[in-house]
């Protein structure tokens, strides 16, 4: 039964992603001024939202872990952090590809770029800290949870302060008026990326739980 459900979910996701690709590359017209490269925006913005959903989930799961000490929350925090990092990497790579022809440079120290980069480095540090032992698995989990909470509280402070400093003022387009086809494509791409995010999250979470079970079984075995 469960197998059938998985196949159903996976096929649904595949259809959604192919539809999104079709919409982005075929259905939607090119933007008048920026041309074809603007199409990157559909994935870029959705990935940025997915990354911050991941970071927010690390925050919630970390608080829950400290409260309840149930290992499942820790697995969720780890899975969400990894996906947050992956999706912010997509943002940091797709952004410059768009920026080079439009701004003339790959990178500008503009508030959103800078904030994204800083958030990315913090969560990479989170993953590095997790991968080094602290003497006991329980302690590593507690440390990770504390970092998960502190890191997320820092995100709005970073955003505010980077705005305060910014040499280049806000260059991201705000309140753009989009043609109906563009709006439809945006929502479709967003749905596909978010669905992919949650699907990967579920798989990574289950994998982590299995890995820990194996570790536990291994530890219970008599010395080989």
């Amino acid at each position, binding site marked *: 039964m469960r197998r059938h459900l998985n196949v159903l979910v996976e096929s649904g996701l595949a259809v959604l992603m192919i539809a999104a690709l079709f919409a982005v590359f075929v259905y939607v017209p090119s933007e008048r001024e920026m041309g074809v490269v603007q199409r990157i925006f559909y994935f870029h913005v959705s990935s940025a939202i997915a990354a911050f959903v991941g970071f927010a989930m690390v925050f919630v799961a970390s608080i829950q872990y*400290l409260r309840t000490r149930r290992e499942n929350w820790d697995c969720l925090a780890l899975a969400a952090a990894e996906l947050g990092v992956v999706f912010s990497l997509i943002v940091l790579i797709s952004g410059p590809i768009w920026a080079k022809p439009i701004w003339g440079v790959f990178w500008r120290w503009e508030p959103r770029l800078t904030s994204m980069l*800083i958030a990315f*480095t*913090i969560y990479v*540090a989170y993953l*590095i*800290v997790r991968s*080094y*032992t*602290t*003497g006991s698995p329980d*302690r590593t989990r*507690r*440390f990770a*949870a*504390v*970092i998960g*909470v*502190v*890191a997320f*509280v*820092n995100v709005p*402070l*970073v955003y*505010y*302060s*980077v705005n*305060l*400093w910014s040499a280049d003022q806000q260059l991201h387009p705000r309140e753009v008026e989009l043609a109906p086809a563009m709006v439809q494509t945006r929502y479709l791409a967003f749905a596909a990326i978010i669905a992919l995010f949650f699907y990967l999250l579920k798989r990574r979470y289950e994998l982590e739980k299995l890995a820990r079970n194996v570790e536990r079984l291994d530890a219970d075995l008599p010395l080989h």
Partner: protein
Amino acid sequence: MNYVGQTITILRKDLSLEWRSKERITPMVLFVLLILLVFNFSFELGGAVLSEIGPGVLWSAFIFAGLLSLHRTFASERQNETLDALLLAPIDRSALYLSKMLSNFVFLLAVQLFSLPPFCFFFNLSPEPPLLLLLPVLVLGAACLAAVGTLFAAMSIHSRLREQFLPLLVLPMMVPALISCIGGTAEVFDQTQRFAIGDQVEIFSDGLVTHLQMLGTYAMVFNALALMLFEYIVEE
């Protein structure tokens, strides 16, 4: 003993240890001077560019020196095998954080104050009265670094990453505070230089006030977080 008494007792212990050995402040001050020396080879620091890159240089030096020293907050307790005793003592865990944070705050501020005169001397910043405005920037900057640094130093002693642990987390976390430290310092340097040539100066310009507010907010947020979370770090 009440909460304040507990905090003050540990704080006094750390301060008198440092007073006798000076093993944290002295190397830090020298380290700051060495960084300034190295930066001097990359940039011509005096004169007009002082208020442009001087503050960044100064705070880079402060933060690198701070990172080296912050690891010792709990590492020295561990070397002397006194950490367990501290944790066994019938005191509130957050009082332990508070006292360690305050001692770090004192050390960091002392280092900043000791290295400021050589900075002015080597980079031709005449010490006019407006330079006094730097004091609130230094105090709040040290408070921010002490809060973040103490929280993570309690973790760094256990991690296999050892000395690499602190920079990895403290540097990105400190970005909001660092921006305002550098911004505020730039304002103050600017006013000082203008005062030196007889221009009109503006005490507490809008820019400086905004930066000070940011630093105050950051210090409060992180101290509150650390007070809440510290017990989860040291629990055994």
